C-alpha cells in the first residue's frame, strides 16, 4: 500500500480522479480542514479509508476513543474536574477576600488562579494536537470563538475557562445550535463576561431610591454576534426588550458559599415580570421560560441560519464564502432545526468544498499554524509554553481575545511581514528540535492584580527564555525529515521542492514547516 501511495504521489496532480482531486489530495484536504492537518500515518489511513468515510468518522466524535496517554495527561490536570461553584470558592473572590491586605497572600491567590488558567490552556492544546476526534476540537475552538469570553476580564473568567469549554461548548459542538445557545447563556463564564449576572429590573425601594438597572451588554451581543448578526433585523428596542427578558439569568455566589453547586440560577428578585415585545412577538412576563422562548426564537431565525452558515463557510472554505453554498447551508439549518452536524455535512459534501480553487487557499491563523506544526512534527509535547508564547507574539493569545466578536480567520487579518518572520523562527526552532517542549510544567508569571493597563492584549506570558538555559532533557529530538515528508504528503510546489533539495538535510524539517504551502490549508 505504501508503494502504491508513493507512486500516486510521484505522478502528482496529473493523476487525478474525475472530480478534479486525486485520492491522496482529497485525504490531505480533508485532514487540513476537518483536522489541524495530518499527523504521522494519518494521510495513509485517510487515503485508504477514503475522505468520505473520514468525514463520517469525524462527524461522530462520540464513537472515537481517546488514546490512554492523552486521557492520562488530561486527568493529571486536577482543576479541570471542578465545577464553577467549587472553582469560585477555592480560587475566586472568596480566596482573594481571605487573603486580605497581605501582599504575599494576594500574590498566592493570583498564582493559584493562573495555574488554573494554565491548566485550561494546556488541556486545550493537548486535545488540539493529540485528540483523534479532530473535528470536535476544530468545532470547539470555532464555537468558543463564536461565544467568546476573555481570560483577562477578572479572577472569575480566568478560573472558569476550562469549565466553560467543558460544560457549554465541547459537548454541543456538533449538536443542535439551540443547545449551544442555551448552555452558553446559562454559564457563569458568559453571564460574567457580558455582565448579565448583574442585570436587574429597575425599581424603587421603600425609601424612594432607585435600585437595580438593566444591563444590555449581553442582549446586544446575543443578537448581534451569537445569533442574528449585525444586519439580522433587530432594533435598539429589541435589545432593551431582550435585556428585560433575560433579567434574573444569573448565578448566586451566596448559595455557593453555603455549599450549593448549581452553576446557574434564575433569580426572580432581579427579573422584570412586565410584558415585552421582542422581534414582533409578544412575551408575557412569566419568568425563566421567557428567556428560553427568546432563545428558541433566535435559534430558529433565518437570519441566524444565514449568519452561522456564512461564518462556517468562511472558516472551512474561503475568506469570501461562495454565496450559493451559504444559501444551501442556510436551508439545511432551517430544515434540520439548527443541527450543526447536518449543516456541516452539507458543507463537506458540497462541490465548492472540493473544488481545486478552494483547496490550500486559506491562510492559517496563528492557532491553526502552531497546532498543525506541532501535529505534523510528531513531537511529544509536555510543555506547551513555547506554543503559548508563539500565539502571544503572533497576536492571538489563547483565550485572550478581549472583545466578544472573537478572532477573525482571514488572510487580511493575519498576514503581515512581522508575522511571517516570527512563524519561520518558530518553524525553525521546532524543526531543529530547539523548543523546550518536554520541560516539566512551569508556572506562568503572575500578571498584576490591577486591571491591565490600556494596551492591546499581548504578551502577559514572557517569550521563551534563551535556548542555552535548557538541558537536552527538555527538548525532544528534532523531527525526522523523511517522516515529516511522508506525514505531509506532497503539497509542495516545484519551487519549494527545489529549495528543499538544495538545503542541508538537517534543515529540511524546518523548511517544510516554514514552507508557503504549510502556511496555508
Amino acid at each position, binding site marked *: 500500500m505504501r508503494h502504491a501511495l508513493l507512486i500516486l504521489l510521484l505522478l502528482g496532480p496529473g493523476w487525478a480522479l474525475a472530480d478534479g482531486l486525486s485520492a491522496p489530495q482529497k485525504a490531505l484536504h480533508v485532514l487540513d480542514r476537518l483536522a489541524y492537518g495530518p499527523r504521522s500515518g494519518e494521510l495513509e489511513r485517510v487515503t485508504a479509508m477514503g475522505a468520505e468515510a473520514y468525514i463520517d468518522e469525524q462527524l461522530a466524535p462520540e464513537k472515537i476513543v481517546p488514546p490512554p496517554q492523552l486521557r492520562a495527561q488530561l486527568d493529571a490536570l486536577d482543576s479541570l474536574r471542578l465545577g464553577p461553584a467549587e472553582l469560585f470558592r477555592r480560587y475566586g473572590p472568596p480566596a482573594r477576600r481571605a487573603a486580605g491586605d497581605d501582599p504575599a497572600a494576594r500574590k498566592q491567590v493570583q498564582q493559584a488562579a493562573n495555574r488554573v488558567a494554565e491548566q485550561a490552556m494546556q488541556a486545550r492544546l493537548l486535545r488540539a494536537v493529540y485528540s483523534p476526534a479532530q473535528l470536535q476540537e476544530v468545532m470547539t475552538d470555532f464555537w468558543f470563538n463564536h461565544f467568546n469570553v476573555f481570560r483577562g476580564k477578572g479572577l472569575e473568567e480566568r478560573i472558569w475557562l476550562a469549565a466553560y469549554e467543558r460544560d457549554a461548548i465541547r459537548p454541543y459542538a456538533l449538536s443542535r445550535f439551540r443547545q449551544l445557545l442555551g448552555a452558553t447563556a446559562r454559564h457563569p463564564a458568559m453571564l460574567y463576561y457580558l455582565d448579565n449576572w448583574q442585570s436587574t429590573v429597575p425599581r424603587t425601594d421603600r425609601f424612594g431610591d432607585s435600585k437595580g438597572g438593566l*444591563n444590555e451588554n449581553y442582549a446586544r451581543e446575543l443578537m448581534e454576534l451569537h445569533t442574528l448578526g449585525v444586519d439580522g433585523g433587530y432594533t435598539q428596542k429589541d435589545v432593551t426588550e431582550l435585556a428585560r427578558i433575560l433579567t434574573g439569568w444569573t448565578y448566586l455566589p451566596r448559595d455557593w458559599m453555603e455549599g450549593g453547586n448549581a452553576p446557574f440560577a434564575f433569580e426572580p428578585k432581579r427579573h422584570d415580570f412586565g410584558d415585552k415585545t421582542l422581534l414582533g412577538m409578544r412575551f408575557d412576563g412569566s419568568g425563566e421560560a421567557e428567556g428560553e422562548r427568546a432563545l428558541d426564537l433566535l435559534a430558529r431565525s433565518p437570519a441566524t441560519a444565514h449568519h452561522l452558515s456564512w461564518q462556517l463557510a468562511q472558516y472551512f472554505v474561503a475568506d469570501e464564502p461562495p454565496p450559493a453554498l451559504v444559501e444551501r447551508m442556510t436551508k439545511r439549518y432551517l430544515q434540520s432545526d439548527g443541527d450543526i452536524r447536518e449543516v456541516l455535512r452539507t458543507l463537506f459534501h458540497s462541490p465548492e468544498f472540493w473544488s481545486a480553487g478552494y483547496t490550500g487557499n486559506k491562510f492559517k491563523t496563528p492557532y491553526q499554524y502552531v497546532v498543525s506544526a506541532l501535529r505534523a512534527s510528531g513531537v511529544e509535547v509536555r510543555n506547551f509554553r513555547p506554543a503559548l508564547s508563539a500565539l502571544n507574539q503572533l497576536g492571538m493569545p489563547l483565550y485572550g481575545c478581549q472583545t466578544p466578536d472573537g478572532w477573525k480567520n482571514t488572510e487580511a487579518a493575519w498576514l*503581515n511581514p*512581522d508575522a511571517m*518572520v516570527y512563524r*519561520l*523562527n518558530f518553524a525553525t526552532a521546532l524543526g531543529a528540535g530547539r523548543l523546550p517542549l518536554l520541560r516539566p510544567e512551569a508556572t506562568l508569571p503572575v500578571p498584576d492584580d490591577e486591571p491591565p*493597563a490600556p494596551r492591546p492584549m499581548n504578551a502577559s506570558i514572557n517569550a521563551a527564555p*534563551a535556548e542555552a538555559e535548557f538541558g537536552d532533557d527538555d527538548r525532544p529530538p528534532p523531527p525526522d525529515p523523511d517522516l515529516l515528508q511522508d506525514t505531509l504528503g506532497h503539497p509542495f510546489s516545484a519551487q519549494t521542492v527545489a529549495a528543499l533539495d538544495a538545503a542541508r538535510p538537517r534543515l529540511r524539517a524546518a*523548511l517544510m514547516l516554514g*514552507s508557503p504551502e504549510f502556511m496555508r490549508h
Partner: protein
Amino acid sequence: MNRRALLKQLGLTAATLPFARAHWACAADLPPAAGNKRLVVLMLRGAVDGLSLVAPHADSDYYALRPNIAIPRPGGAGGLLDLDGRFGLHPALAPLLPLWQARQLAFVHAAGSPDPTRSHFDAQDYMESGTPGVKSTGDGWMNRLLGQLPQQPGALAAVSFGPVLPRICSGPQSVANVPLGRAASRPTAMDRPEINSAFDRMYAGAGSLGEAYREGRRSRQEILAELSEPAAMEAQQADNGAPPPQGYAQDTAQLARLMQRNPRLQLAFMQLGGWDTHVNQGAADGQLARRLQPLGEGLAQLASGLGPLWNDTVVVVMSEFGRTARENGNHGTDHGHGNLMWVLGGPVAGGKVYGEWPGLAAAALHEGRDLAVTTDFRTVLARVCGQHLRLPDRRLDAVFPRAPGTGAAQLQGLLDT
C-alpha cells in the same frame, strides 16, 4: 534619511498587504514645508465615556442623570479640573492640564458619526474606513491619506503600533508595524544565512506570502544590527535621565524618538482598548480613572519627548461613539452616540472646547438617551489634514469621499495656519 537607516533605529518591521507597491505621488500642488508636518492618530477602542473626560459641570442635567458616577464640580475633593467655566477635565488627566493652559490642547465635543450604529465593531469599522454607513470600503482612511502625501520611494512615511495591522492603516500604501514595549531584539534563527537563504529561495516570486516574507526579511536585517547594541539601550535611558516609562508612555516615548530622527515619518497610529465601562465605571476614581491615568501620562510624554517637533505635530484622539448620558443600574454606562474628540499639538489653537454643545436636556438627547452629534468626525479629521498637512480639497475628497463637513463652522480657528 533612507528607509534602511530608519528601520535600524527602533526595531521596525514593515507591514503591507498584497497590493501594488507605493507609487510616487504627484507633489506639484503641495508646499515644500508640508513634508515636515506630523499627524498622530490615537484610537480609544470600546467607546470611552467622553462625558466623563470633559464633563459639562455647569449643566445641572449632568448631575441629575448620573447621581453615582458624575465627577464632582471643580473645587471639591476629587473634583473636575475646570477648563472654561462650562466644562471640566477628569482629574486623572491632570498631566494634560499644562497643555490646555498653554493653549495646545483643544476638544471638540458632541462629535461623532452620522451613522446611528451602536455596535462597537461596525462603528470602529466606519471610523477607520472613513466612510460611515458603507461596509464595502476596502482600505482605511490613513492609508488613503498616505497616498495623497508626497512620498519618496524607500522612505518610511507611516507607522502603526502593535502586531496586527489595523483597518485604518490597511491598503496599498506601505505602513510599518512597530512592536509594543521592548522589541524582540535577540538573534533568532532567521538571522543565520544558512537558514534565511533557504527560505529566500523558497519564497522567491510573487504572491502575497512572498511579498510579506521579503518585507519581513528586509526589516529584520536592520533590527538585529541596531537593537542588539548595548549603546542603543543606554541611549534610550539617557534621553531624559528618568527610568524608562512603562505602558503607554513607553510607546509614545518610542514614537517621539522615531519622529525626531526621521523627517519623512509623517503618520502614526496608536490604539488603546478597554474603555467599555458598562459596570462600575467609577467617577473621579475607579475603573475609568485608572485607565485614564496612563493615557494622560503617555500623551504628555509624547509632547515633551517630541521637543521642538511638537510645533509641527498634531495628535487626534477619537473613539467610535460615546456612552449613554444617564448612568445604568450597574453604576456604568451603555453604548451611546456623540463623543469627545481631542486635538492637541503645537499648531493647535487650544484652550477651547469647539463644536456646538447641544446640552443634556431630555429633548436634546439623541433617541432620548445619548449625547447628540453636532460635528461629523470626518470634518475634524479633514480640517487637520487640510490645514495642518496642507492637503488641497481635491486630495481631501479622495481621503474622505462624500464627507458632509457638518460642524465646520464651529471648528473655525482650530488650527493656526
